[in-house]
Structure formats: structure tokens, C-alpha cells
């Protein structure tokens, strides 16, 4: 669909849920497709995405009104580039209050920008409750429940709760599989472009020279990235699918 782009918001109620890593992988997904997504890093202190993608990232400090304007006015603008927001948990409440207040969803969609909320619950009950509330608050936005396998399943007392079950049953989901800790650490290397890593096949000569554990690491990282890329791709298809016009019966394939 011409000129349709996404405003992807990666959010969670608490910190350390893997938001920034996921936002990074999604950015790399778009880059692999030949796009240059616009990234908003909402953590002015620890702006890791700015460090990773200095030319396409904007740092915004949400308590400041001019930054709010930069963020939301840009998010809602018609544009071919998709936008990704790494929403720091510290600004979780303020961001979604603003989204409500500005009627952002309606304005964005009117300009061909599809909002997609990617919500990561953690092990705590209130994170599931916040997720349910968020999906209900914005029924006109695509809402994806992210399962970050690294966080593990919560306790039985949480799993028996309504909110946990509701999010578990939600149709749009994205699984972030586990990744070995030493590989996760390697991802901290700012010069490692994941899309480049995915593009370049391992030459036979390189493979021969690498010790076994590194060869395995490369394979594991590729598998992990591929899984997430495929998940993101499926989500975009689902979001686009919801928007597809009803087929015109005059052009049926009969005859």
C-alpha cells in the first residue's frame, strides 16, 4: 500500500524488559528491507539507541513540552519511513496520557500512519494489568503482546490472574526467544550492525578459521534474529491485512 508507514511503540510498565534490544532489532528489520526508520530514544540519560544509530535517532525528554511536540507531531506525520519509539518505563504513563489527549491514533491513521503498540509484560501482576488496560484504552491501535522468553513465566499466583490470561489469549503476539548471555553481551558492541550481520553469509574460509563456539554463536544469533524478523513481518502483514479493502466482486477471478 502506497505511503503506508508504521509508528511502532515499544513499551513496558517496568524497566529492564528488553525494550531497547527489541526496538533495535525492529530498526534493523526495516533497514534490511531497505528502509531507514526514524528512531526516538526517550531516555535522555542512557540513550543507547542514539549511540547505535546516530544518524537516524532523536533523543526526546518527555517531560518537556517542546520534546513532546517533536515526538508526537513527527509520529503522526505522513511519511514513507516508519518510526520506532523506545519508550522508557519512566515515561510510560505520560506518553500514553499524551497519546489519549492528542487523539493521536485517529490523526495518525488519517495520514496513513498505522500505530502499533508492542507491549512487554514482565513477571509482575501489575505489568499484566497495565497491558490489558493499555489495549482497552486504545482499541483503534494495533496491539501486540511481546513474550520475552528471557524474562521467564511468572509465579502461579500471577498466572491464575485474569490479566495474565487475557494477554496470553491475545491474538497478535511476538516471541523474543532466549539468547545465550555471552551472545547478548556481544550485542552491546555498538559497531555491530545486525542487518549487515544478516546480509553477509559466513564464507567457507571464515567458518573454517572460527573456533567451534564462535561458529555456534553466529548461527545462534542468526536464528534468533531471523525468528524476530519473521515475527515482525507477520505482524506487519496482520496490520496491513486489517486495512486491506474488501475485494471488488466485479474483478473476481471467475472466467
Amino acid at each position: 500500500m502506497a505511503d503506508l508507514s508504521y509508528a511502532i511503540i515499544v513499551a513496558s510498565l517496568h524497566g529492564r524488559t528488553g525494550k531497547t534490544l527489541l526496538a533495535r532489532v525492529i530498526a534493523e528489520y526495516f533497514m534490511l528491507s531497505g528502509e531507514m526508520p526514524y528512531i526516538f530514544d526517550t531516555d535522555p540519560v542512557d540513550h543507547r539507541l542514539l549511540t547505535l544509530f546516530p544518524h537516524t535517532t532523536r533523543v526526546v525528554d518527555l517531560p518537556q513540552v517542546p520534546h513532546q511536540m517533536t515526538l508526537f507531531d513527527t509520529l503522526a506525520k505522513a511519511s514513507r519511513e516508519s518510526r520506532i519509539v523506545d519508550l522508557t518505563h519512566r515515561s510510560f504513563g505520560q506518553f500514553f496520557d499524551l497519546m489519549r489527549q492528542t487523539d493521536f491514533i485517529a490523526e495518525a491513521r488519517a495520514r496513513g500512519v498505522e500505530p502499533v503498540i508492542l507491549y512487554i509484560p514482565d513477571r509482575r501482576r501489575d505489568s499484566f494489568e497495565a497491558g490489558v488496560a493499555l489495549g482497552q484504552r486504545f482499541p483503534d491501535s494495533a496491539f501486540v503482546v511481546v513474550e520475552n522468553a528471557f524474562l521467564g513465566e511468572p509465579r502461579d499466583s500471577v498466572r491464575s490472574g485474569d490479566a495474565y490470561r487475557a494477554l496470553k489469549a491475545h491474538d497478535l503476539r511476538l516471541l523474543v526467544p532466549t539468547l545465550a548471555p555471552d551472545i547478548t553481551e556481544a550485542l552491546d558492541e555498538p559497531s555491530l550492525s545486525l542487518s549487515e550481520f544478516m546480509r553477509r553469509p559466513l564464507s567457507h574460509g571464515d567458518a573454517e578459521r572460527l573456533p567451534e563456539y564462535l561458529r555456534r554463536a553466529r548461527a545462534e544469533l542468526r536464528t534468533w534474529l531471523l525468528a524476530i524478523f519473521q515475527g515482525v513481518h507477520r505482524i506487519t502483514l496482520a496490520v496491513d491485512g486489517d486495512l486491506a479493502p474488501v475485494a471488488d466482486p466485479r474483478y473476481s477471478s471467475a472466467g
Partner: protein
Amino acid sequence: MSVKPVVLLVGADKGGVGKTTITRTLLDYLATRGVPVRAFDTEYPRGTLKRFHPDITEIVDITTAADQIKILDTLTTSEVKVSVVDVRAGALLDTLKTFTDVGFFDLVREGEFNFILFHVIGPSVASLEEIAEVMPYTRSDHYFVMKNFINETSFFDWQPEIQKGYFKLVKDAEELTIPKLNEMAYEQAELAGIPFSTFVANKNAQGQNANYSLVLRGYVRTWLAQITAEYDRIRLVDRLAGKNVSA
């Protein structure tokens, strides 16, 4: 059943309390509720209100007999039943005295006209003194205190005992809370020179699509909704129609 003409004065004895802003929200509200209204901008000669609602506003010099006649004599002849007068800062008491002298309040007592006073006050104790001075002209069912939180200043400077003393002449005076609007949002709406709801709808004065900030429009939208809730709460439309509104 013909509706009585009603005069709604918006006044403050001090400048800078946001009186004209409140009048603008009032005109916006009445337009949304489909109530025809005409407005008199007493900030003669240049006016402060007319810029935002040019089609329904006339600039007058309320100190001149000619313009007093223009307002009051046309009350019975105008098709528009609601007349809003945005009284110049510092001129509230004088305006009330003038209205007394020309017999307007006699006619209100006789049931010819209705009268409502929106008294816009700031958070200082001097405002309480203004209220005391205005008391003789008012009855509780048509007097409304508008607490405008323009600087987010707390109105809690008012000791309850002091406050009770000033309000003892007007039982259960209704207070409306006008919340603070973010300054950048206010400024952009101000610069646009259009009614608040037009700004929120992202249209310019000619009704064409504009390019105002999504975020600033959101702030104005929320602020306006809170004020609308206050006007709804006091059943302003019913009062203007002369309906009996019991507490």
C-alpha cells in the same frame, strides 16, 4: 414561550487574571451548545475579544452613554437573547454602578431581563475584597466566582474563616475552576487568532486545514473539555434560558 433576554457579564477588578480567555471559552461553549450569542468587547478602541470571534463581537466604550444604550436598549429588540459583556479590567464595579443608574437591575428584579455575573478572580486576598465590593449587586443564583489557575498558584491562601466572611452575603456562591493551560499551547492558539475549538480542530479562520501542533492542540482540547464540564455542571444553558435551576 419567549425567552427573556439575558446579560452575562464577565468581569474582574484586576488585569491579568485571564478574563478575556474565559470569555473566549464561554463563547466557544455556547457555540458548541447551539446557543446564539452576541458579545461586547469593552476593550475600546482596539478590542481583545473581537479578534477571536469577529462575527459576533462588537467593540464598545462602556463609559459612554451611547455605547451603554447600544448594549442595553437592544436587549429587547435583538433576536439574539444572550449578550455577553467582557468588561474591561478594573471597570467591573463602575460597570455595575452604571447598570444600576440606568435602571437595568430594576428591570432584572421586575423580571424583564436575566443577569449573570462571572467574577474572575486571582489567588490573592485582594480578590476577596473585590468580591465584597461586588456583593451588593448580586444574588447567589446569578453570581459565579471563576477561579482561574493561570499561574498554577494555589488558591489556598484564603483562610476558611476569611473566605466565609466575604461570602456570608451570598449563600453557597458557586465556584468554577478554570484549570491551567500549558503556556505554549495558549500562545499558539493566541497567535492563531481563532476560537479555541477551531484551533483544536486544526482549522484556520477560513475553515481550511491548518498545521498546528498535535500536542498543543491536545492540551487545549483537554483544557477545554474540563471547562465544558464546569459549564455543564452549573447548567449554564438552562440558566441562560431562564429555567429554574435548583441547587
